[in-house]
């Protein structure tokens, strides 16, 4: 049981690092951004490649990873999303455009990794960053994995930073204004472009930190983003795609379902362990269907009710 609890804590912090920026970017831009997958994967691989070339510590790696992927996110915005947004294309088209950049970035990464593998002569398709950190440390009488502490530390620091930023700092409050009503925000003098750029910097950077945490804890592979994205989306969706604290809670719910819930079902109901992904999606579906988020991140502005049988029949249908 202890092992499952620790796993839940560990995985939920990483999921939270990956899904909070997704919530943030959706809330400000209303675009479901597929390139988020690439941000996560690039975060992991930037760490891997830099750590193989230079001897780096954890803090330097985090900084480099944040900066590089933040730049990537802003470039993605400037080259792909911004021209389309200025033409007033609808959200679905923007989502497909982000899908295009996801595909492009994914195979660009494959090309880079293949060439790097030929040059460095080290296997790069399933690799961890080469950062000199002991994998377990002793606290009191427990042997705890360092990476669990690191992921949780990164997560808590990021959430605190976002809280302070969005509540107190002017740019953060501008971001919230644009998220709520872009037109009115612009009227009050907020530069929408600056806000969007800042949003993408934060999104890309934090997602990359999520990728770094994952690759440290487990491994990096070019399919990393693709494999976690459904769980990450699930966390954001539980958070209503608009609320960051709820997304953090969503990360817990999904991690719980994947670790502890499946353990209970296996022990008490004899359910096969191979149903694990089934349970996470079922949880997601139940949460959405039972309490669909209305307004804010989506949902109908009204609850559609089936016509009551006693109603008079209308002449048209």
């Amino acid at each position, binding site marked *: 049981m202890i092992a499952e609890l620790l796993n839940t804590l560990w995985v939920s912090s990483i999921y939270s690092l990956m899904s909070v920026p997704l919530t943030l970017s959706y809330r400000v831009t209303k675009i*479901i951004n597929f390139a988020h997958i690439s941000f996560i994967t690039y975060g992991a691989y930037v760490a891997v490649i830099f750590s193989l070339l230079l001897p780096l510590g954890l803090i330097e790696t985090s900084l480099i990873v944040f900066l590089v992927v933040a730049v990537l996110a802003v470039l993605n915005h400037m080259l*792909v999303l911004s*021209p*389309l947004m200025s*033409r007033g*294309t609808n959200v*679905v*088209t923007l989502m*497909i*455009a982000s*899908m*295009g*950049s*996801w*595909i*492009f*970035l*994914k*195979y*660009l990464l*494959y*090309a880079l990794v*293949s060439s790097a593998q030929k040059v460095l002569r080290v296997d790069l398709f399933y690799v961890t960053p080469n950062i000199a950190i002991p994998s377990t440390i002793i606290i009191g009488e427990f042997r705890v994995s360092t990476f669990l502490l690191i992921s949780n530390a990164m997560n808590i620091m990021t959430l605190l930073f976002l809280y302070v930023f969005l509540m107190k700092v002017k740019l953060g409050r501008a971001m919230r204004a644009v998220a709520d009503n872009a037109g009115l925000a612009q009227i009050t003098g907020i530069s929408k472009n600056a806000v969007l750029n800042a949003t993408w910097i934060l999104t890309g950077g934090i997602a990359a930190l999520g990728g770094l945490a994952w690759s440290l804890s487990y491994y990096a592979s070019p399919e990393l983003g693709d494999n976690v994205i*459904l769980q990450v*989306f*699930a966390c954001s*969706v539980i958070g209503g*795609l608009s609320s960051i604290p709820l997304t953090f809670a969503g990360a817990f719910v999904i991690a719980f379902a994947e670790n502890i819930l499946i353990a209970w079902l296996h022990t008490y109901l004899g359910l*096969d362990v*191979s*149903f694990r*992904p*089934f349970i996470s*999606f*079922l949880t*997601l*579906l139940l949460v*959405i*269907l039972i309490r*669909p*988020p*209305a307004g804010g*991140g*989506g*949902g*109908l502005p*009204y609850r*559609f009710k*089936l016509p009551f049988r006693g109603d008079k029949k*209308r002449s*048209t*249908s």
Partner: protein
Amino acid sequence: MLSWSSLFTIYSILAISLNLEIGFTGISNFGKVAFYGIGAFIAASFGIWSFLLVFRLAYPLYGLNTIIALGKIAAANPLLNVTVFFVSISLSFIVAGIFGYLITYPTLRVGPAFLGITVLSFGELMRIFLRHFKPTGAASGLMGLPHPFAWINDSTMKSALFVISALAIMVIIYSFSQRLVNSPYGRAMKSIREDEIAALCLGKNVLRYKAQVLFIASGFSGVAGALLVFYTGFVSPDLFVTSVTFDIWAMVIVGGMANNRGAILGTAVITFIDRLAAILNFIPWFPLDPNILRWMITGILIIVVLMFRPSGLLPERTLKTPAWETIGLGSKAISTMERGRALVSFLFKLMIKIVDWFKAGGR
């Protein structure tokens, strides 16, 4: 070229069905692959089971004895083969349609933003469930489904006949969709897409329209799935991953939403682009890695098309409802029925020409 056409037909049916959902009615269906998979599994299970039933063999649906037995039976019974083919397709249409209908309530309950992930999780759930479902082969899937034209010895003829049947089905689905859309029903669909509340206020039963559209479109996806399994003779849960849905979305968006011809064009572009790019592998002196380029081209193509032509290659057109045509608006007011007749006779002549050409020893 034949082999390309079969997969192209299957994908264009999927694209048309997605177009009906997102292009005309505004339902963002991200779980298309679920209905595709349901249709495929139903067709495969029914196909194998019906053969076993007719010959009273007590083998399970999967397994080596089944494959060998089926191989022998199929070659000897032409009528049974073709009948099973058509019955399976109809059955997949109905079952997949029913599942589509069942999804209407969740569609209404969550909003448009969450609809995507809801249907997507439904798709994944189906896939994981099928991976454990022993009667349909669990993770190994079902193999050895006889080709509907397995009784013909000439393999080119076999493929040609299959392509022709698939094309015929695609034409039926296309003309049905065109008729459905170019009518007051289509106008209602569009109104639901534009503004649901307004449609409700005008007395349109939004629930019923969405349910019907989902039934029809999911049924079509099921038919596509059935065609796929008869083409490859194999079905497994791994064929129905979420990236298939994204591919079909790309086809619809690139080709043009709310335009059935656009859906087909988009399918053609995406299906053929990476085959054409694969030709680069044959050029030894090409500097970049052609394999990676092949996949990157799809991504770049999506972005480029959306950049310069955001509404897709073929934009949305006005609906040619019967009222429109009666009033005589639009320069060439040829009625749909006449156009349909002309199309069918043209295709018929084309089919005859293809068959003759293959008989004469082409590929």
